[in-house]
C-alpha cells in the first residue's frame, strides 16, 4: 500500500512532458554522441567557450544548434556588454539557422548576479528546454555552478554557459567545449569542436558541420583542421 503510494508520488513529482523524453540530447553526429554516451545530458550544466574572442559567433552557432535540437522554448540571457562586443542575436539569422525566433526569449542583465538569477529562474520554467547564459569573461564560482546544475537537474532542461574565451577553472559542469570556426566556404557552417571535459566519458576533437535543413550536426566530410581553401581544388567535392 505504502509502496504503491510512494510510486504514485514519484510519478506526480516528475515534471510532465519529460517522462518519455530522452535524458540525453543527441547532437546528430554519431561519433560525438557515442563519446557523450548518447548525447548532451539534459538536466545538466554545460560550458561552451569560444576558442578566442573572434570565434564567439561560432560558439553562439554551436549553442544555437543545441537549442534548436532541444525543441520547445529557449531563453538567452546575456550581460548588456556582450551585445555591444559581439553583436545582438539577429532574428532572420536565427531563423535561417534553424532556430525559430518565436521560440526564443532574450534577457539583458546588468551584472553577473542578475544573469545567474535569471538563468535559475528560467531553468525552473517547465516550458523551457534550453537556457543559454552568455557570461563572456570571469570565472563561474563553484556555488553558482552548483546551483545552476541543481536547477537544471530538477527541471530536466539544458543549462549552457557561453564564454568568449576558454577558462581553466574547476567546475561542476558535465561537459566543457571549446568551439572555433572552421573553413567551410559558405556551404554549411563548420566548427572545430573540442570536448575538453566530459564527466561521463572520453574527450575528443572533431570538425562538425551544422545542417540547418536537417537541424543536426554532422561530422564534416574532410576533417582536416586546416583545410586548404576549397576553391583551389574544384575537382574535390564539397560536402
Amino acid at each position, binding site marked *: 500500500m505504502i509502496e504503491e503510494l510512494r510510486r504514485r508520488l514519484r510519478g506526480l513529482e516528475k515534471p510532465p512532458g519529460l517522462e518519455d523524453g530522452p535524458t540525453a540530447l543527441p547532437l546528430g553526429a554519431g561519433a560525438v554522441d557515442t563519446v557523450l554516451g548518447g548525447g548532451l545530458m539534459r538536466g545538466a550544466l554545460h560550458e561552451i567557450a569560444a576558442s578566442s574572442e573572434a570565434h*564567439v559567433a561560432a560558439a553562439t552557432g554551436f549553442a544555437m544548434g543545441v537549442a534548436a535540437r532541444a525543441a520547445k522554448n529557449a531563453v538567452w540571457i546575456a550581460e548588456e556588454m556582450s551585445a555591444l562586443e559581439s553583436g*545582438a*542575436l539577429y532574428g*532572420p539569422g536565427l531563423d535561417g539557422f534553424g532556430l525559430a525566433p518565436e521560440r526564443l526569449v*532574450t534577457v539583458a542583465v546588468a551584472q553577473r548576479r542578475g544573469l545567474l538569477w535569471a538563468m535559475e529562474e528560467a531553468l525552473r520554467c517547465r516550458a523551457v528546454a534550453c537556457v543559454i547564459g552568455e557570461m563572456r569573461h570571469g570565472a563561474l564560482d563553484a556555488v553558482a555552478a552548483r546551483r545552476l546544475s541543481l536547477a537544471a537537474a530538477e527541471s530536466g532542461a539544458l543549462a549552457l554557459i557561453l564564454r568568449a574565451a576558454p577558462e581553466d577553472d574547476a567546475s561542476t559542469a558535465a561537459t566543457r567545449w571549446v568551439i572555433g570556426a572552421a*573553413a567551410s566556404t559558405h556551404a554549411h557552417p563548420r566548427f572545430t569542436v573540442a570536448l575538453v571535459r566530459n564527466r561521463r566519458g572520453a574527450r575528443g576533437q572533431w570538425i562538425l558541420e551544422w545542417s540547418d535543413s536537417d537541424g543536426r550536426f554532422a561530422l564534416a566530410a574532410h576533417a582536416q583542421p586546416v583545410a586548404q581553401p576549397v576553391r583551389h581544388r574544384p575537382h574535390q567535392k564539397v560536402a
Partner: protein
Amino acid sequence: MLSLWLSRFATDRIRRSREIAAPLAVYGRRGNADVLTAVDGAAARIGLTPGLALTQARAMHPALEAVPEDANADATLLDQIADWCLRYTPLVACDAPDGLLMDITGCAHLYGGEAALIADVSARLDRAGFAFAIAVAGATGAAHAAARYGAHGSHANGDERKVLSPLPLAALRLPPDTVASLARVGLKRVGDIIDLPRSPITARFGGAVVRQLDRALALEDEPLSPRLPVAPYAAEQRFAEPIAREEDVLAVTERLAQRLKAALERRGDGARRIELTLFRTDGALRRIAAGTSRPMRDAAEIRALFTERLAALSDALDPGFGFDMARLSVLTAEPCAPEQIGIGGGDETKEINRLVDRLSARLGSQRVRRLIAQDSHLPEIAAAAMPAQATGTDDGWAAFRAYRAAAELAPRPLRLFARPEPIEAVAEVPDGPPLRFRWRRALHEVISAEGPERIEGTWWSEHGGPARDYFRVEDRSGLRFWLFRAGLYRDLAPGDAAPAWFVHGTFA
C-alpha cells in the same frame, strides 16, 4: 464634493520644516516691490495681512521672520497631500495653490458618513500641523466657496442657494476686476445676483459670472480632473495595527487580489498592469506597479509578481512606523477568456508567460524581450527586439519566411552589431569584395566571398543612407563576416572619397 482649503498653507509648510518662534510671513515679488503673500496666525494677530509691502511690515515688526516664497515647494507639498488623500477617494484634484477637491460620492459611508469622514481628515491634518477648512456640498463651486468663506461642515444637496447667498461674490471664483465692477453697482453678495435676470448680467459683466453661479448652484456640471487616472478596479484594506513586514504586505496583496478577482470575473476582464499603493502612517505613499504579459486574475500569480517587484526595489521598502492602508488597483484591464484562468494546467504558453512576467518584474520589462520581424528590407530594421510582455501573437515571422522564400533572400548573420563597425578594407576591383580587411586591429585575409547583395537606401528618408553592397566573406581561419560597402562607385562624383567599408554582423 469635498473642498479642503489649507488656509495658511505656505507658512505651515515652513513651520513644518523648522521651529520658528517669531511671527512668520512669506513674501514674493509683485511688480516692483516685495510684498507679503502669506502670513501665519501670529503675524495676522499683530496686524499683518497679505499684500503689505515687506519693508513696511519689517518696520512695523522688526522681529518678523520673512521667508521668500517657493511656489515649487508649495506645489510639491500639495501633491503629497493630494496623494495622501487618495486614502479617502480615488478622485482627488488639486485646487491650486492651496486647496484640494475630492469627490467623495460613494466613499463617505466607508468612514460612517460625511461628518465622520470630515472628522477623520481633520484629526489627521491637525496632527500634521496644518490650518485648514473643509466643506462638503453638492457642487464643486459651492464646496469651494463654503470652505473659504466660513460656511464649514457638511451641506446637503440642494442647500447651495442657502449656503451661498450670504457669501461675497469673490467666493464664486471670479476674476478680481469682475468682482470690483460688480461691487461698483452695489452687487456684493452672491444673494444679490441669484435672482437677477441673467441676460443683462451677461451683457454687462461677461458670461463668466452666470456660468460660475450656475456651477456653484449645481445647475451646470463642472468636470473634475483628477490628478491620477482612476483605476477601473481597486480594492483596499485598512489596518487597525500598521503592518511593516514584507511578508505581511504580500499576504495583504494576495487578499486584495482575491477580492479584485471576483470583480474582474464579473466583467470578463484580466489585469495587464497592477499597482500596489501603500499608505504609511506618517502620510507618505509608496506606489509599486507591475506589468503582466497577458490578462491575469489569479491571486497567487499576482502575489508572485509582487514578490519579484519587492525583491527588485532599488531602495528597500521603508515602512517607517508601518503602513496603515493598502490599495491594489488594476490600472489597465483587458478582456480575458475564462479558460485562461487557473494555475493547474501545464500549457506551455502560459508557463513561458509566467516566466516572462517574473523576469520582467525583477529586471524591468525593457530587458526581457522577444524578437519580432518587421516589414523592411533594411537589415537593421527587419528584426527588432520588443519587450516580451508587449508583443502580441503576431510576431511577423510567418510573413518573413514567406518573403524569404519568395525573394530567395541570402543568408543572414547570427549576430548583428547595433552599429556597423568601420573597417579598413582593400578590394581587388572597385565593385568587388575586399581581399583583406582590418577589424578591431586584427587583419583578416578573405579566402572566399559571396555577393554582392545590393540593399538600396530608403529614398524617403535622409537617414536611409546610400545603397549598400553586402558580402558574406570567410577569412583564412574560418571566421565568417557580413561586410558591406556604403555607397557605390557609380554614384561617386569626381573628388569624392572612396566608399567606406563596414562589418555589420558575424555568421556562425
